[in-house]
């Protein structure tokens, strides 16, 4: 029963710490803690609601821009503003590009090193690697010479003795299962994806001037003018650029990302039985297909699944059932910390009661995180690609069913395999394929609107606060790459009086609620095997499969909470 410290867990966004207890080589309990707080909701009070998206977009620079969309939707909901069809399409394109780019980065640069042993790739035969690559895809960069070149580059890097970000890792760990040739293929694609992602995201530069944090949203529409006869608007040249980039994105997803996921997953099928978590899934849905943006037209359907029940239609979702606890969070509620508040009544009052730094351990019996604890109808919910694919599958969304079934068949597993660490990672790839198909379609729709003379991009009737009611409340949702994102706003006299964001990683990474019910990270880690307590790569696999939007730290403690060993450093 060793106690080891992994602090921080890397390859995620932000700051998260997990303390976990292991017995007989398995995790028996875990606590998830965020160790960073900024107070954006407090900063928003008293500001112009039209500015809120600029502020909230900075909540995250990785899945950048998602908070912008949730924010403008919340204010539009409060003020009852309908956006033009072109704004719907531009928003879909920006969010869609974000999905495809972010999911590919997540797999190759944040998650793959949990499954891929870079050092093993040095032992690969480039000829066999080439055969492997060509057997799963007709991607042209698959010659023996190409893989030989990648291998030489990695060898030179290793020989330099300056391993940089690849130093001190878990290379050679017994939990790595890929043959050297598969490792070499994956390393090559790690490097290719690094180049690919910066090209694809130019879609944001064209539509929003830059990435991260594109600058083009407006309450009521978008600031991206459309005019085929203007030099500084979305014209023929920019449409052609968007189309080319979208096709490049789709090609890479279909010819590299999807084949890699299937190939790598086939060596890790035991992970289809690990890391399920709470078994409840929530999606607000997103990507409206109809001109009026109605919810029924969403490409990713809205709904709730309880207890892994995908045999029946998902339950309808009502945002009024969303609440947040602070029972184990470093906040207080003015009327007591045991209650749960809907975000329209939500409070953000920081109240740190943890240990004074530098500290070794948190007091997990009391408050232990800067995250609140969201609940839906008082139940913990997992959000993210797996939730969306399960809800789409159960709802009968045809293309999602086709893609999910194809992947299950390829891996030779049934639908139950989806409820797992592997299922989470596979669902992300399936979803990427779907969005990559839709991206060129939305660009075509936009071009068709422009061709028909429809250049409307903004509804300005309520741009001036003089046209607003004295009081208004609204909520806006979107599905971020990492999961369901909701913003709730109260407006009075043209100013924000309360603003609450409930973000995907709060759902997934939350501490226990007032009844001590675990959140999804905490639940998913239970029963995780730990082959080498000094190198707990298995914990990284499950935590990374959620694609956390914060940096984190993990502690493993034995049942008595006594430190036995610490990770040795060389």
């Amino acid at each position, binding site marked *: 029963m060793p106690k080891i410290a992994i602090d*921080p867990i890397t390859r995620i966004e932000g700051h998260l710490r997990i303390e976990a207890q292991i017995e007989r080589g398995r995790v028996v309990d875990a606590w998830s803690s965020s*160790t960073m707080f900024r107070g954006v909701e407090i900063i928003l009070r008293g500001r112009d609601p039209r500015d809120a998206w600029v502020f909230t977009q900075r909540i995250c620079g990785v899945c950048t821009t998602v908070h912008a969309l949730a924010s403008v939707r919340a204010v539009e909901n409060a003020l009852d503003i309908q956006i033009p069809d072109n704004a719907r399409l531009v928003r879909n394109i920006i969010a869609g590009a974000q999905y495809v780019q972010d999911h590919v980065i997540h797999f190759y640069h944040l998650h793959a090193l949990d499954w891929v042993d870079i050092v093993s790739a040095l032992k690969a035969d480039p000829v066999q690697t080439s055969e492997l690559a060509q057997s799963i895809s007709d991607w042209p960069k698959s010659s023996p010479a190409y893989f030989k070149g990648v291998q030489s580059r990695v060898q030179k890097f290793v020989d330099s003795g300056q391993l940089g970000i690849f130093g001190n890792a878990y290379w050679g760990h017994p939990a790595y299962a890929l043959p050297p040739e598969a490792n070499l293929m994956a390393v090559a694609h790690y490097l290719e994806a690094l180049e690919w992602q910066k090209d694809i995201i130019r879609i944001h530069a064209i539509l929003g001037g830059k990435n991260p944090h594109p600058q083009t949203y407006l309450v009521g529409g978008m*600031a991206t003018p459309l005019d085929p006869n203007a030099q500084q608007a979305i014209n023929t040249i920019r449409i052609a650029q968007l189309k080319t980039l979208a*096709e490049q994105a789709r090609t890479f997803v279909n010819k590299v990302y999807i084949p890699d996921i299937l190939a790598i997953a086939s060596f890790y099928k035991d992970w289809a039985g690990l890391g399920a978590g709470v078994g409840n899934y929530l999606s607000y849905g997103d990507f409206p297909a109809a001109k009026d943006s109605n919810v029924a037209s969403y490409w990713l359907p809205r709904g709730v699944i309880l207890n892994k029940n995908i045999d029946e239609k998902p339950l309808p979702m009502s945002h009024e059932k969303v609440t947040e606890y602070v029972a184990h969070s470093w906040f207080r509620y003015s009327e007591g910390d045991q209650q749960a508040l809907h975000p329209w009544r939500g409070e953000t009052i920081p109240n740190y009661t943890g240990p004074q730094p530098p500290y070794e351990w948190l007091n997990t019996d009391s408050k232990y995180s800067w995250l609140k604890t969201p609940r839906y109808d008082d139940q913990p919910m997992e959000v993210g690609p797996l939730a969306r694919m399960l809800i789409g599958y159960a709802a009968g969304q045809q293309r999602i069913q086709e893609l999910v079934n194809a992947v299950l068949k390829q891996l030779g597993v049934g639908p139950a395999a989806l409820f797992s660490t592997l299922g989470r990672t596979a669902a992300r790839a399936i979803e990427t394929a779907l969005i990559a198909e839709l991206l060129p379609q939305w660009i075509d729709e936009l071009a068709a609107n422009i061709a028909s003379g429809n250049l409307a991009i903004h509804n300005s009737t309520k741009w001036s606060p003089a046209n607003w009611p004295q009081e208004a409340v609204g909520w806006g949702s979107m599905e971020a790459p990492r999961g369901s994102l909701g913003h709730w706003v109260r407006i009075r006299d043209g100013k924000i009086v309360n603003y609450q964001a409930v973000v995907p990683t709060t759902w997934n990474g939350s501490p226990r609620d007032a009844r001590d019910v675990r959140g999804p990270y905490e639940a998913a880690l239970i029963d995780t095997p730990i082959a080498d307590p000094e190198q707990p790569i298995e914990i990284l696999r499950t935590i990374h499969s959620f694609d956390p939007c914060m940096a984190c730290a993990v502690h493993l403690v034995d049942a008595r909470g006594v430190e036995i060993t610490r990770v040795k450093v060389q």
Partner: protein
Amino acid sequence: MPARPLSLEERLAARGVSRRQFLKFCAAMSATLALPATFTPRIAKALNTAERLPVVWLEFQDCAGNTESFLRTESPGVADIVLEQISLEYHETIMAPAGHRAEHSLDAVVEHYPGQYIAIVEGSIPTANGGVYCTIGGRTALSIAQRVCSNALATIAVGACAWDGGLPAASPNPTGAVGVRQAVPGLKNLINLPGCPMNVINLTAIIVHYLTFKQLPATNEQGLPFFAYGQLIHNNCERRGHFDSGRFVERWGDEGHRLGWCLYKMGCKGPQTYSNCPAVGWNGTSYWPIGAGHGCVGCMSPRFWDTMSPFYERLPNVEGFGVEVTADTLGAIAVGAVAAAGAIHGVASAIRARRHPIAAHDGDEVLVEAAERVTQVVEQIAGPVRTAEAPFSETENAVAPEKSGDVDKDRPSTS
């Protein structure tokens, strides 16, 4: 280990990057730094002989936006040069090891390379309540910054948050967030790259500058390098002609908006923001926020969350221009604006002259010209490299945009 580390040029050659392309990159860097072309050979020599410089990247109250900007380092040539030129020892978002092994990577650099590594800081540093609003491994951001930055050869604060506290420090600053300058007072060799996020081309340029000249580029008293923050956006804005002629967007999506008229009345903060955005573009394109149709929010300006908001209200008074009056009086503006532009330039030159270790640039044209060349050269480097490997055969027949996009077509050619 090899007897001699391969030079950068050799490493690139192994990857199919030609000497010509390499020299073009060096020219681009000298241009971004607003140095005369005669410096290009010096940069090439420095890059080819320099050891890989240890770099650690710290993240505190951040959103990883600057990390993402870093990952967008543009064009294969530039990305490879950055990755192969420096030795990035610690970066939580992308490093392979976790836990104590990760922390060891950081400790090893601080201990083994005292005064010889670059510390890059992203995110603000909370100081209220003993710093409990950001801890990593049980230690406060403040203590980590003090230890790591104090022992660095130089610290580069990337993004608005690391510069002056940024978003977390916006009123009422609930966590007592500050930038590196305040968190570690008296720090020598601190360079600030404000922006939300910073434009990575400027970070690359600083590293190249150091490797070439063994000193940091000239900055103003706030640590902002002149090559990137020496000019008003307004002076180089592609919509400037419309401003001078009194043509303003009045409503989002109106004819003026579609035709690219001036966004001043929609709240654009370009007239008070110093940045090379319009010159260097973003993400390897010629695009930037104003070009895409939204006003500047002033993200490179001091305390911009409070000083530049509300973002959709026009600047009350643009220094030297009297715009509040003249913007509403079409046609009456041109003469005054030209005269005022000269006055502003005079101020900028005076500031610039305060600290000037290297005789660099003189005159506005150099910077504009330099940045144009960067964009073009970056595209030229990117083109041949990608074509040689021809990965996107499926899309080759699609309508291909002109490689350089619509880079500054209305500007006179500089070649």
